[in-house]
């Protein structure tokens, strides 16, 4: 039985610090390695790589490097209604988008900078009713099945599942390829497709902050980094440094 895989990399991150500007290098290494994994699956098995992200429209440009690397399309789900969305809302919106795209394989980076990503893949699998393989360090797709080597606290596992499925990678598992100049030019000409919650049939649904079950109680910018404490070496500087690290439970 052979399914034509349509792998999909989710370059997920609503962390505005990283995604609020257009720029070639704003995907993290984790995202880029997810894109690379998706491209490798496509290069082996055929199909199409679609990069999907739920971000403010202004951040759509951040997907451009993924297009330059060779992703076929980029789609962002965006809209004022999504502001303040938590994990539950995000997974609902993304699940709707994945259904619309009829993806056979959904690939996510292990976690995104905002912390929600470390769970997003499971929420997404749940909503889509698909099997989930997480913490993957090596991936093979063949004969309509996904096999992966998983890295966990207890060791390395081999696991396998049928497609469609959700795959979450364990960090930067492979080196992303560099695009050529031609690839970049081609990528810059492509349009990033924009979907709204309405177009995904989520009109009127409780989204954004109001639909979120997580409440942000307080948020403050991290204090600017002050001047470092300088330790003059009087022969005991190493002890002070060790004490400092121990006090803060950094070792």
């Amino acid at each position, binding site marked *: 039985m052979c399914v034509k895989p349509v792998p999909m990399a989710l370059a997920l991150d609503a962390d505005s610090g990283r995604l609020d500007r257009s720029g*070639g290098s704003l995907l993290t290494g984790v995202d880029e390695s997810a894109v690379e994994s998706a491209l490798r699956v496509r290069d082996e098995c055929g199909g199409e790589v679609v990069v999907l992200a739920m971000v403010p429209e202004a951040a759509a440009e951040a997907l451009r490097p993924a297009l330059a690397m060779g992703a076929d399309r980029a789609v962002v789900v965006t809209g004022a209604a999504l502001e303040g969305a938590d994990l539950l809302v995000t997974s609902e919106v993304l699940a709707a988008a994945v259904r619309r795209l009829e993806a056979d394989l959904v690939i996510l980076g292990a976690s995104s900078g905002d912390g929600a990503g470390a769970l997003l893949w499971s929420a997404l699998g749940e909503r889509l009713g698909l099997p989930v393989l997480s913490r993957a360090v090596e991936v093979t797709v063949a004969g309509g099945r996904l096999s992966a080597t998983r890295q966990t606290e207890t060791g390395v596992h081999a696991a396998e599942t049928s497609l469609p499925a959700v795959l979450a990678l364990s960090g930067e598992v492979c080196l992303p390829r560099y695009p050529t100049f031609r690839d970049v030019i081609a990528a810059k*000409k492509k349009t990033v497709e924009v979907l709204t919650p309405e177009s995904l049939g989520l009109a009127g649904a409780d989204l954004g902050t109001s639909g979120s079950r997580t409440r942000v109680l307080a948020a403050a910018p991290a204090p600017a980094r002050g*001047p470092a404490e300088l330790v003059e070496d009087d022969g005991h500087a190493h002890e002070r440094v060790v004490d400092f690290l121990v006090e803060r439970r950094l070792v």
Partner: protein
Amino acid sequence: MGETTTGPDFPTLFSPLRIRGVEVRNRVVFQPHFNALGDVHGMPTEDLTAYLEERAWGGAGLIVDGSMATMPEGQMSRKYLAAWDPRAVPLNRRTTDAVHAHGATIFAQLNHGGHTSLEHPPPVLWAPTQMPEPSSPHTTRAMDRGDMVRAIEGFAVSTRNLVAAGYDGVEIKIAHDGLLRSFASPFFNRRTDAYGGSFENRMRFPLECVAAVRENLPEDLPLGIRICLHEYTPFGYELDYGLRMAEHLEASGLVDYFNCDAGSFSSFWMEIPPAAVAQGYFRPLNQALKKQSDLPIVAFGRIKDGGLAEHMLATGEADLVGMARQLIADPETPRKLAEGRAVEVRACIGCNDGCLHAVAQEKPIRCVQNPAAGQELLWSERLLVRAAEPRTVVVIGGGPAGLKVAEIAARRGHRVTLFERSEHLGGQLRLAARQPHHEEVAEVTHYLEAAVRRLGVELWTGVEATADDLLELEPDVVVVATGSQPNLPPEHRQSHTDPDAGALARARGLQVLPEVPGLELGCVYSVDEVLGGAELPGDRVLVVDGQGHWEAAGTAEFLADAGKQVTVISSRPVVAGELEGTNIAMFLQRVAAKGIALRPLTTLLRIEPGRARVVDGVTGVEQWLDVDVVVPVHSRRSREDLYHRLCDLVAESDREVRVERIGDASAARLIQTVLLEAHQVAVTV
């Protein structure tokens, strides 16, 4: 305008301090320095006013203008400000008004040049005892009492002029050059009259000058001493004596603060220490003076980091921190620190190439890091205007040139995309920084890289641009900043990793290859290969210095540090002769320690496997040198083919695209003019 805010991260640095009757808004002092921005009559120019005004705007608490000369004999350069001359008063008033308008305080430093001068030939040099300053061939005139009276009068008249011009205080130089230190010095002062012999006698004349200044200063205005605490010469005095001088001056009750200093003309690399002298190296001197004195102490010497400055103040090492070159490189340093923008500070790299090198030749001050230094009226970043129409700017190359043009164009609101074919930004400076004692040069591109990222420039690293497809990006402006490569024959191994980017230019007669037979051989290694970590076949290395600056000198040192047996030849009279003076002095000290052999006036004729033929420039005698590796460092060739192809394509198309080439892609040279050129192009886009 006006006050800068108190920085929460630097509470001590941004706390005010009272010196006698004058309150200084924070602890950052723009140290005095001859900047050659006076005219040939010693009158301050508008450039000088703008130079100091820029630092006041940038948030410095105290600016010390000068040095200024107290009389015509003793004016170390004709461009040294003529404090004695009443015609300078209204012009200096222009400066003090401009500085005060930003809330900063301004003092002036007075100096009599004594046995030291920058003029060639120098005028008659005054000294306590007739003898040349050891670093100079020019001897001196031993002063008589009449000379002394005139010199004291010079300090008095100058002080009255400074007060009339609106200065808030006067600093007297008993420091690394000039007359007053030579009187205090047991080496230079061998007099047997009332002005020599004993310590008290040697200090007598400096104190008479100090008293003359105090008498002419209004009650509330402070008087400071710039004091050389350590001469760092085999024959001179050391810290203990410097401290004794300070103690004696303080005991006179005439002094309100000390500004620390060190070195002399015979150890001028310690006056204005280059990067080879560690940051904060002089802290023990500052600390020692602070410990014994009840007066406010200005710390000095390679202080460029806000964190270090705060630490020094907070731990009581000093009361103010002096920054000369850090504020030359980034006038806005205090403002950025105060506003929580410490990451935006552009660091001085301690090169001395733009500042000291220029003024030592009596040319207006410049700065490698800051293209506007000394020419604020033309290129200050405060003059940048947002572009009326944002345009699409494509920059090829992420070295200093490309990054600078991207930074300034983006600040002006243009849409900028930059392509760099290597995985990292920085260009040649990534190699340069691997040379010993040269790491700080990388801060040029560290600053620019952070700036372009902050400004949202679209960066593509690991992507090599080609002329063919470029116009598809629909640029309004393309800036070609593809840099330069070692000029080796295309058959040389280098072409495998760094393809020949000058073939088209050579075909058009725009470039030539060097005419030394054997440059294509496997035993020939380029600087880029060596610093890039190539494994060399053998230990005997010949470095050919056809460049004179760090490229050859630092590579020779890099090789010596790697255990190679290095000989450096140069056709010119001095190996590494293009290095700035403090750098070459310290380079030569290390050459001796590292056993590098230097052969000036020696030219490379041909290379064969295992040996190189050279000729002596004086005798014409030829000789084979047995060597395993030859590293030829002659002028690099521009990677300019892309530029020519692109110009052809634009001419063939019907598009309106402006194509510029900048940096080494137009002519290989040093960073200073590369960055200025990039700035100049970016302001016209």
